[in-house]
């Protein structure tokens, strides 16, 4: 029983990371109708920038203030993400207004290549570490409930709390602020939004920035758990079934979908994997998404898809 809960909690933690990446997908899709395959590359660039900026500033400061170095790192990485958002809007999206979905999808793959190349050219292609001072030691919990208790990393708790704060902040941002309202208006109808005076271009920069910040948070959590390296880009492919499961247009869907996929992956790997030879994590998530698709084509929380002639 203890093992089962441990596995499940581990799954929830992974799922939360997926949720963060999926959130980036959903934000951009809602606001511009672009499915952003470059989200994985953005996580990579953000994590690389964070790791390197804090490393450099740590060296410059003489290594006595880790906190300051991390703040500089976060600010630097944030600036990089802003630059990325601005460049994407200025040089790519602006020229592709009114193109088909497939073209936009391909363009984000192109952006992903460029970001991967640029990020590694500027920040190097080794394995780097991010140290934001998260405690690594495990704690034993629920000793009263199950025999022997359940072992959990403190780090995972902090990460989960951080993600929850982020999601809460985003919800408030979307629901309560003027910019958030503008973003929702653009998501509903580009033309209508434009005709009431919402600048599309600026809105897109903002939404790519927000997605960049989400990528930064995902990058920091992922990087401090497992180190920053190129393979981080594959997280985009891991998070894809999450958005499909939760619905492409739904923020809560991304969160719930991420948790379901995370838990499903871990449980299937542990309890089903040994019978079929292991390594089933990745396709299991996709098959789960596929089954949901067959019954609910719009995902669990997505808006119903209506076909008009």
């Amino acid at each position, binding site marked *: 029983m203890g093992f089962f809960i441990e596995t499940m909690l581990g799954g929830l933690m992974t799922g939360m990371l997926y949720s963060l990446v999926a959130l980036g997908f959903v934000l951009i899709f809602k606001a511009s109708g672009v*499915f952003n395959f470059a989200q994985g590359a953005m996580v990579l660039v953000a994590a690389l920038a964070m790791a390197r900026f804090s490393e450099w500033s740590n060296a410059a400061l003489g290594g006595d203030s880790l906190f300051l170095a991390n703040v500089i790192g976060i600010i630097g990485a944030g600036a990089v993400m802003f630059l990325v958002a601005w460049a994407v809007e200025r*040089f*790519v999206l602006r*020229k*592709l207004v009114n*193109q*088909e*979905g*497939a*073209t936009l*999808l*391909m*363009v984000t*793959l*192109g*952006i*992903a*290549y*460029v*970001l*991967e*190349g*640029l990020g*590694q*050219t500027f920040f190097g*292609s080794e394995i780097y570490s991010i140290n934001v001072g998260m405690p690594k030691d495990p704690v034993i919990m629920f000793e009263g409930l199950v025999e022997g208790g359940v072992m959990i990393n403190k780090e995972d708790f902090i990460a989960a709390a951080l993600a929850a704060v982020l999601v809460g902040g985003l919800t408030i941002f979307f629901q309560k602020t003027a910019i958030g309202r503008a973003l929702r208006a653009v998501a509903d109808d580009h033309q209508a939004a434009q005709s009431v005076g919402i600048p599309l271009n600026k809105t897109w920069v903002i939404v790519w920035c927000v997605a960049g910040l989400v990528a930064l948070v995902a990058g920091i959590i992922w990087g401090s758990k497992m180190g920053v390296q190129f393979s981080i880009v594959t997280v985009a*492919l891991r998070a*894809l*079934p999450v958005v*499909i499961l939760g619905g*492409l247009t739904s923020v809560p869907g991304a969160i719930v979908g991420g948790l379901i996929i995370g838990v499903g992956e871990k449980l299937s790997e542990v309890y089903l994997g040994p019978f*079929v*030879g*292991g*390594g*089933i994590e*990745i*396709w299991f998530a*996709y*098959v789960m*998404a*596929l089954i949901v*698709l*067959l019954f609910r*084509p719009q*995902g669990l929380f997505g808006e119903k898809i209506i*076909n*008009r*002639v």
Partner: protein
Amino acid sequence: MFYRENGQFKTSYAADQQIFTIAQDKWFVWGLIAFAALAVPMLADEYMFRAILIPFLVLSLAALGVNLLVGYCGQITLGAGAFMAIGAYAAYNFMVRIDGMPLILAMLLGGAAAAAFGILFGIPSLRVRGLYLAVATLAAQFLCDWAFLRIGWFTNYSSSGSVSVAKLEVLGWVVDSPVEKYLFCLAFVVVFAVIAKNLTRAAIGRQWMAIRDMDVAAEVIGIRPMFAKLSAFAVSSFFVGVAGALWGFVYLGSWEPAAFSVDRSFQLLFMVIIGGMGSIMGSFFGAAFIVVLPIFLNQFLPFLGSLVGISVSTAGVSHAEFIIFGSLIIFFLIVEPHGLARLWSIAKQKLRLWPFPH
């Protein structure tokens, strides 16, 4: 002037229904095939065959298959690599498990196996479309990656996980030198390109295009979406499967599941979009672009670096390749969203009037 249809009258139905109704087109294509079959084997060296021509031919066949599905029927797929893998492994198993299996039959059976799986993974297309469908096909990709890696039966319990075909022999003709391999691939590509061209002109191709343009409207005028979509999946997967068998048997010789990873699927989709969706010619342009570009960059960048006095490291080259490749994709999609095939048809239009534009 060079591309003028004046004076070419069609006096019979047969003349009206030819693939190329304009004589220049016909002679150009015949000339191209003759050049590829006769002149290229004499001109190209071994490196050209191995590194450029054979992969180009095989990948254009695969791109052709993907184009039938994506370009003509409008169903996005990110699982093309999986169907290549199914084609390759099925053909391999037919070769290994049945004594005296003819090579070409094994490849076609490999294609048929891919077609069967194509129908299976095409079923979600009846319910979902666009991006959701792309994800459904990605499921096929990851499932196949896993199955060929973990299930020993498919690889005939080979200990290293890689499989190979000993000898390629067609009716006593042993295909082993690069030139022969090239000609073997060329024959496949020409035959399949003709089949694809004719399919798209026939009733079934028109059904696909109707579904692509507006599926609800197509349904209303009496096209069965289930038949049209699943047939597109089947035919496309058949092409891709045969290409996969060629890729494994002829180009790679011995291969592992990684040869057909998700990157391959993306690459094929790139070829179709850069080449031109819904164009047979476009598949070839796209394949040529994607095959040649990395090789070109690999050769050219160190040279450029030495010109300006910077020695470019291997890692630097591979990063620069990423950047330039991505930028070119973005650039092409911005300036010509309809692909290289559109440039081709614009060029033909210009040639029609040149040098007297009025």
